[in-house]
């Protein structure tokens, strides 16, 4: 029975992918109000599905955390703390509205301040790591170290003033070698995505749909 459900789910997902793919491609290549309307409708569906997944996420977190707290598994106090925070924020946001000044103040004073503090710590670790790792032992590490110094130097205000040419060097590096590498990654990723999509549609890639786990 579970195998049948898995296959039904797999083919249903495949059908949805084909409808979405065809509608999007058609709206891109053909000028037709009807096709555009279908594509727009599908985009709205997509937004609704994403909204729904937010709720699913909350239920998933709670179902896992409650089990872990009941079993007193590792880190259960943090999970309990997380659940309490989620409930408090939902009630608080619903009651005051997320655009209210009080919600904004609470949000900035807790989550955002902590997150910024965590990001701010990175510069300490980056500097000590740069001291240890950017050591020119081989050609490869030389390229690595020179690139790192070039990027920092090209963004340094004290260098841009007396040497405006640095700005042009920076743009040349970003527009040519950097972009070439980035495009290569993007193109290979895109081709990989197309191949994965074809394999998914042909039923060769069942792992992504978790079909192999239950069969």
């Amino acid at each position, binding site marked *: 029975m579970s195998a049948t459900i898995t296959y039904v789910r797999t083919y249903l997902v495949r059908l949805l992918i084909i409808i979405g793919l065809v509608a999007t491609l058609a709206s891109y290549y053909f000028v037709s109000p009807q096709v*555009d309307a279908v*594509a*727009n409708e*599908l*985009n*709205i569906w*997509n*937004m609704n*599905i*994403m*909204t729904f*997944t*937010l709720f699913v996420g909350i239920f998933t977190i709670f179902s896992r955390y409650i089990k872990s707290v009941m079993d007193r598994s590792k880190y259960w106090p943090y999970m309990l703390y997380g659940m309490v925070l989620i409930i408090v924020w939902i009630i608080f946001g619903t009651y005051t*509205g*997320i*655009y209210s000044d009080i919600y*904004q103040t609470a*949000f*900035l004073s807790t*989550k*955002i301040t902590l*997150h*910024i503090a*965590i*990001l701010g710590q990175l*510069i*300490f670790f*980056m*500097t*000590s790591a*740069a*001291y*240890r*790792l*950017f*050591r*020119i*032992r081989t050609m490869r590490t030389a390229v690595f*170290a020179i690139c*790192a*110094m070039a*990027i*920092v*130097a090209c*963004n*340094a*205000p*004290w*260098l*841009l*003033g007396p040497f*405006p040419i640095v*700005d042009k060097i920076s*743009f040349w590096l*970003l*527009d040519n070698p*950097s*972009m070439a590498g*980035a495009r290569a990654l993007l193109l290979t990723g895109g081709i990989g995505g197309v191949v994965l999509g074809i394999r998914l549609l042909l039923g060769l890639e069942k792992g992504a749909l978790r079909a192999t786990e239950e069969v």
Partner: protein
Amino acid sequence: MAKIPELKAQYIWLVVLIVYIIPTLTPIGAPFEMSDITIEIYEFIDTLPEGSIVIIGGSYVFAFDLESSAALIACLRHMARKGLRVVNAPFAVEAVQFEKYCIDAARVDEKYGGPWKYGRDYVQLPYMPGAAAAYVAFLEDVHSAVATDVEGTPLSELPLMNDLRSWEDIDAWVCPHWSFDFVVRYATAERDIPSIYFAQAAAYAGYSPYMMAYPGKCWMTNGFLGGAQYEKLEGVPGLGHAVVDAYAIMSAVYIIFIVLGNITMFSRMGEEEEEI
């Protein structure tokens, strides 16, 4: 050659901490060069006619986007002074809070004595999930993609939103969040809407080739430095100016430590050869 001892990480952290604390306590007013691109952005905003609709939107987390706030706050003051109208379109959960933070910090709302009135001059939309699909849905039909503002007021009751139906009503898109690729792809490349990105320094390196790909249609400022440049143009020194001091010293300290690490390595290599 004398053997240079390896520095402990804690000593490096202490130096970094001091480098941050000194300019915070006693601002040194480090000089910085004005960027031609920042000037172009400023002049582009200047050329927009009164009443033009500018979208401020994108998606990422608040803590990262804070780096964009320096330029955005100055730009909001600029747009308010010019009589432009703004619709904040968040495509990430925390973007609502970030956009509210910038509007409040810019003091452009009439409750702070500014010229903007909510609903008439600016509107805050709620989070629109769906990533790329949400961008396309929003651009194609705003009122289908989102029915109310962030506080639940129907869009039909907001005068500004009656003038914004689709991408054809948008004069420019300002992105103060990380996901500029979506904006370039769907707004600039496909629909010819000029786009401005107040980029985080880390994102700037990745996205700056878009300026070469879409000249005269796509501009970017670079991190807090770009923010300081926009603040200087608008004449409102703020977070950008405050950070540039630390930015300037830290960039030198970072390079010094890389050089020091290499000198240490070379000095110890000599010792190792002698030992062998």
